């Protein structure tokens, strides 16, 4: 038995259980939560370099599972998100007064499907296997988005479908060309010829659409803003990350040797524009959830802004760690923020930022969760978000890159502008508005996630060490790397 298998098998087993249990499906989280957290912890403490082939069938035919730094950071964070979201949703997706609804029945199996799919994606090195995991996650994501707005869900569905097909087209070319779709083998075999470049291009384009990098982000804000709070949290925190992780695997592992610096700069430039555009849009929003959704557009930009910084670094391990820490802390903080926003908006029965007036008095815990998440998202210390932006800014300045450095600074300030606006409204007024009392169990979910995002700020060294476990050569260690050839 290995956590590499169980982290995928267990959620799928829980999915089956939830489907069979029907109305009682929500109770399963009480078992699934501890099990998955324990498995994640097991994964983190595995000795470095643990990897095995499914069914012992050798490459190039078989599928390799691996506990690298990416998985060791993202799997536990994903588990934390799912557990917290599930605890929050436990109340929201419950059968009410005997009249069970479709959502109370279907949310839980889909949650586990998404969970299993995410874990499977983080752990595998097989590009076709990744296609299947993308679809596992997308399927659940589309259905969750459709719970809020069918129209937005349908738009998301069609875009995601084309994105996955673009990715699949690349996989098809690679499989035919190299007779393997394993990233570790491709890293050795890949040559910079037309089919390979074509494959990289279409795969990247498809994944960027799914990751919603500016200017391919159009579908994200309506879908993420309309969904019910737990679904929004999962969509913004977890779903987006899978496409990004696959991009990391492609750009820094499978094709690290053949991707040119100009391509890195292109992605970095799109990231920079995403930060600026997403932040400005977030500032302009009047509805809280749209603000948070545009914040996702902006925050994703940082992940890509880091690409050229990693590729050109003297010591790529640091920006590499930064980008993973950013992914993890964004995951935690964004899930926390959507859940906190959901609680607050539900309490005031509105959706506008101006509806939050006085909530710092009436719902101090929810506002605290929102504020802690905001600190991490704006990259203010002490938080995981700060650690990530600090390392990125450090790398940008060290490399003398003015534009990324400026964007990092401006993005942080714009982030503070849009994130402190709802807080400011929450602190306004002198009388506490009459709202329903906070349910301690539900508040605990965003509070725990946001606190984790803050706590990451104190664990910088541990995170950097974890991120470097089994890291691909292109991003490993202080050895002078020669990227771009």
């Amino acid at each position, binding site marked *: 038995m290995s956590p590499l298998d169980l982290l995928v098998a267990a959620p799928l087993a829980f999915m089956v259980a939830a489907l069979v249990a029907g109305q009682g499906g929500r109770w399963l989280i009480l078992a699934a939560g501890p099990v998955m957290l324990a498995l994640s912890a097991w994964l983190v403490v595995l000795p470095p370099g643990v990897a095995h082939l499914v069914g012992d069938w050798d490459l190039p035919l078989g599928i390799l599972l691996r506990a690298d730094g990416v998985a060791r950071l993202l799997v536990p964070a994903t588990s934390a998100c799912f557990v917290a979201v599930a605890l929050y949703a436990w109340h929201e997706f419950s059968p009410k007064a005997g009249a069970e609804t479709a959502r109370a029945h279907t949310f839980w199996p889909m949650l586990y499907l998404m969970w299993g799919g995410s874990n499977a994606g983080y752990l595998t090195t097989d590009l076709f296997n990744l296609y299947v995991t993308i679809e596992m996650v997308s399927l659940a994501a589309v259905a969750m988005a459709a719970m809020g707005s069918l129209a937005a869900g349908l738009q998301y569905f069609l875009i995601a479908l084309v994105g996955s097909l673009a990715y699949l087209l690349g996989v098809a070319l690679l499989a035919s060309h190299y007779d393997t779709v394993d990233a570790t083998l491709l890293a050795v075999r890949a040559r910079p010829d037309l089919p390979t470049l074509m494959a990289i291009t279409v795969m990247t384009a498809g994944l960027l659409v799914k990751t919603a990098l500016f200017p391919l982000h159009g579908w994200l804000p309506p879908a993420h803003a309309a969904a019910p709070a737990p679904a929004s949290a999962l969509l913004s925190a977890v779903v987006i990350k899978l496409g990004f992780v696959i991009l990391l695997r492609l750009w820094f592992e499978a094709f690290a040797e053949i991707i040119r610096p100009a391509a890195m700069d292109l992605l970095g430039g799109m990231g920079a524009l995403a930060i600026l555009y997403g932040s400005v849009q977030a500032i302009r929003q009047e509805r809280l959830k749209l603000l948070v959704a545009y914040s996702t557009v902006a925050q994703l930009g940082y992940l890509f802004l880091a690409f050229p910084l990693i590729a050109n670094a003297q010591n790529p391990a640091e920006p590499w760690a930064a980008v993973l820490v950013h992914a993890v802390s964004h995951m935690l903080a964004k899930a926390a923020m959507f859940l906190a926003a959901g609680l607050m908006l539900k309490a005031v029965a509105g959706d506008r930022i101006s509806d939050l007036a006085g909530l710092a008095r009436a719902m101090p815990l929810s506002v605290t969760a929102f504020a802690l998440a905001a600190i991490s998202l704006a990259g203010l*210390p002490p938080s995981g978000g700060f650690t990530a932006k600090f390392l990125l800014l*450090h790398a940008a*300045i060290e490399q003398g890159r003015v534009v990324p450095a400026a964007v990092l*600074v401006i993005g942080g*300030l714009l982030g503070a502008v849009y994130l402190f606006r709802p807080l*400011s409204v929450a602190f*306004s007024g*002198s009388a506490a508005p009459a709202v329903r009392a906070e349910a301690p169990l539900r508040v605990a979910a965003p509070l725990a996630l946001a606190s984790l995002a803050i706590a990451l700020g104190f664990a910088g060294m541990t995170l950097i060490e974890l991120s470097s476990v089994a890291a691909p050569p292109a991003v490993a260690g202080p050895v002078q790397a020669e990227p771009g050839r």
Partner: protein
Amino acid sequence: MMLSAPLVLVLLPLIPAIISFALPERLAAWRNAANLVAATVKVGIVADLLRQVRGGVDLEWRYTFLPGHDFLLRVDTLALLFVSLSVFLWLVTTVYAIGYFGRGPNLARFFGFFNLCVLSATGVALSGTVVTFFLFYELLTLATWPLVVHNGDEKSLRAGRIYLAYTLAGSAAFLVGILWLKALVGSIEFTAPPDLSAVPPLTLTLIFVLCVGGLGVKAALFPLHGWLPTAMAAPAPVSALLHAVAVVKAGAFGIVRMIYDVYGIGTVAELGLGPPLAALAAFTILYGSLRAVMQDEIKTRLAYSTVSQVSYILLGASLIGPFAVIGGLVHLVHQGIMKITLFMCAGALANRLGIKAVTDLDGAGRLMPVTMAAFSIGALGMIGVPPVAGFISKWYLGIGGLQSDAAWVVAVLAGSSLLNAAYFLPMLYRAWLLPPPERAGFRELGTTRDRMLVLPAVVTAAAALAAGVFASSSFSPLTWAKLIAERGYLQ
């Protein structure tokens, strides 16, 4: 030693912070007790540290925060100067805040964030590396914001927005500066100034401008002072401790660190950075005083006075001569004690008599003689009348100016003193010599709460007087400032 003294000192306010956040309003008495006990314990710890450090003990707590960036808390003489000031004033302000608020709304939140501010200010003081300093400096911003918007009205929300805009932009510039410097010369500890000789002068100057610009925001250096007067929308205890002491001093303290412990006097002189900064500080001194004269609202007048007075510290630091340094450092303490006295008195007047404008001060001395006496001592000190502490600062600054061949400093000091007199003396005149408007029977020290509101100001006023009268005693701020100068900057 598991629990290092610097770490304990920094983290101690966390205990009352958590207690304050957690306790419900009906247990307010317990909350007050926790705050007072913690503040008193901290004074005790600092007193002990003062003794140890005087004897040459060096305490530090270090932990690797990120590769190449240590999180370092270090007790040195300069750190202790700032820490002593803040713990003393913390205790006083805690008493004052309890008296000021009584049982108002949101006090749990207020005391919680108040403690986080003290934590940050102590951290700023004890930081041993630039990055540690930055962390606490930024934390200070975050912890202060809820206090600025405490009242929740449109005015304080606007103040909060402006405050964040200024300070976050400032710290962003500061962060860029320190990371740039780090990229050039490696990690920067205050005790071991980096070797800057290999860095081009233009780059060094740019980095200096970024850092001092960033720190200058909190120090309210012209033209970065805009947030301070609007931030006076906050309740009086907040203005008192944070805006007269913790926040603005954190900026000034940071600039002192930059000049003396990061760049070093030699490099600053070589780059010719002293005179422009001194000129800017001098301009801020005069500008702040001029604006103060024009204000009618007492708190805003005091705020502009702060803008002016904090720049005395910068003036002293940028003149780079032994007497000027001592004058600047000692003013860090003196200005803090005097300004907090003024703010606490202003708060008491507003709280009890509803006096907010200078023109309402008529006869206030007769209604609240104790408060106004304290206020007068503070005001006279600010003007620089001997033997109040402010005189000592100005004296040393003046001599320092002459030493550094900058005789214009004396002119600036004289001009500023005149302006100080111009905005303080009319207030004293109205309060003591004009008749009060008709008021029902009013007892200044009627209840315990009244006493908690008024007596802290008396204590600080007495301290301001003592710091001046006993300036040459071995425990005075002046002596300590001299010790810092001897140990650190005058070899």
